[in-house]
């Protein structure tokens, strides 16, 4: 299963992002939180008064932008890494059981899906965050719990067709219990589908987290998050463009990487869905 050229690009971007996040303390040239009033809003490729070099310049508090972006990768990927498994477990459980048992229970799950699709996510998330207070844990739980829908819908569809296949009907004929059929026969057959869904949810969660942070109710300062950095950079856009441009490039690149990787996995693992 060799990656296509665009698959390679996605893979490389994601590996670089993960490495940057993991090795942030080693590779970041400065402490992302240390402020230097004398070196506020230095343009890219400039030196501060002490002769320190800032590749991407500094922000409104004199913090090194490159270091903040590297640490921002940590926040972004950590939220995704924690939220995605929650969505995966909830969505797969509901999707498999709904598709297998069908009937009234299936209807209930489908209505829940409809309702979540109908409701404005960002607004609902903001209302919950302002009521109970934004924290790392609340954001992860919020994104994790609400992210189940893609898994639920697609896994259910897959199970609806799997359950009519011969290996399932024969397992049922020899008297296998429902739990065993689901665990031994249905779940393993959704594995490649789940890989695709996970790879596509990671960039999605990153966008949502950065949007919440941009609106001030996500990751709280001084922790560097790309969305929060963009929101701070907004007011300097006319003259100090770099404060708002670089975090956005970082975010777009990583999201693009995730999407490329997801597209390639979909083409490689699920030929039926090719280039949809």
């Amino acid at each position: 299963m060799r990656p296509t050229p665009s698959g390679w690009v996605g893979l490389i971007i994601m590996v670089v992002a993960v490495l940057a996040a993991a090795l942030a303390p080693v590779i970041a040239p400065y402490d992302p939180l240390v402020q230097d009033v004398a070196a506020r809003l230095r343009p890219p490729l400039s030196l501060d008064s002490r002769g320190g070099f800032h590749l991407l310049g500094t922000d409104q508090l004199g913090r090194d932008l490159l270091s903040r972006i590297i640490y921002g990768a940590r926040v972004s990927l950590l939220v995704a890494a924690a939220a995605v498994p929650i969505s995966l477990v909830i969505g797969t459980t509901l999707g498999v059981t709904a598709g297998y048992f069908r009937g009234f229970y299936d209807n209930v799950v489908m209505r829940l899906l409809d309702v979540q699709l109908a409701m404005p996510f960002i607004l609902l998330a903001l209302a919950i965050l302002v009521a109970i207070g934004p924290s790392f844990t609340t954001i992860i739980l919020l994104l994790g719990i609400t992210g189940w829908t893609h898994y639920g819908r697609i896994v259910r569809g897959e199970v609806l067709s799997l359950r009519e296949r011969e290996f399932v009907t024969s397992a049922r004929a020899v008297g296998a219990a429902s739990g065993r059929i689901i665990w031994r026969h249905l779940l393993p057959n959704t594995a490649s589908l789940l890989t695709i869904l996970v790879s596509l949810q990671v960039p999605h969660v990153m966008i949502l987290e950065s949007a919440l942070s941009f609106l001030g109710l996500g990751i709280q300062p001084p922790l560097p998050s790309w969305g929060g950095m963009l929101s701070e950079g907004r007011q300097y856009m006319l003259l100090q463009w770099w404060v708002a441009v670089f975090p956005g490039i970082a975010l777009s690149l990583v999201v693009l990487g995730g999407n490329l990787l997801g597209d390639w996995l979909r083409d490689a693992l699920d030929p039926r869905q090719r280039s949809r």
Partner: protein
Amino acid sequence: MTRFLIVRLLSTVVSAWLIVTVVFFLARITGDPVALLVPDNATPAEVQAFKERLGLDRSMAEQYVLFLGRSVTGDLGQSIRHVQPALQAVATYMPATIQLAFASLVLAVVGGLALGIVAASRPGSFVDSFAMTLALIGQSVPVYWQGLMLIMIFGLQLQWLPISGRGGWEHLILPAVTLGTTQMAVFARLTRAGMLEQLSQDFIRTARSRGLSELRVTLRHALPNAAIPLVTQAGLTLGGLLAGSVITETIFAWPGVGRFALQAVYNRDFPVVQATVFLVSMVFLAINFLVDLLYTVIDPRTTVA
């Protein structure tokens, strides 16, 4: 077909009921609705009056039944900050959101169809890769960053277009482009996939063998069939756009429901937040029900899925 519509109508009603339930619990998520639904500066006597009027001194079950009954009549309480019914306050911001939603949708559908058709006409060619790369980038760039960049380039540097508020058509361009790009990418990919599927069908070969022009084959024979799934997508998109984009409306100071609701969140004006969630979710349900009706007209094969 009648059965299909009845089933759809019933499930829409159930969804509406579930949405009202979520909206009800939204103000009770902290366990203390008084803190969220009553103004901070109210005197103890006023707090007591509020509790009685909203029924907050009664049991949860009673409160719920009361809330259900009121929401059916469109009564979602009074805005804390603005002295008017919450739903009415939100509704006044709907026209701006509707205008922006339709502008974005037109842009997304026209642009997406064009990109998708061109890409599908020569699969694997340079044009195809170019169009699909464009779509992928459109899907990857976060909406608010794109908005900021458009403001920076076309508003602040070139000073071609206004960057905030609602006014003439020129005010509409930047927010509509911002909001429409992601959706355009989705339409482009769906159109391409649908067209490729249709173009490989037998009836297309027949049409070509009859000597019809490629343009006619593409637009008259393949496109109508490829367009059916796009109708669903357009319904979902329009429903989403009418929810008001909190982010795009805020960045461009567009006076729509999204921006209004965000201000309500910041002001902790919970009745308005509830009313917004209620209104836009109902609009979403209604549009998707209408799309299903439309479906039975354009695709007679439709049955209960």
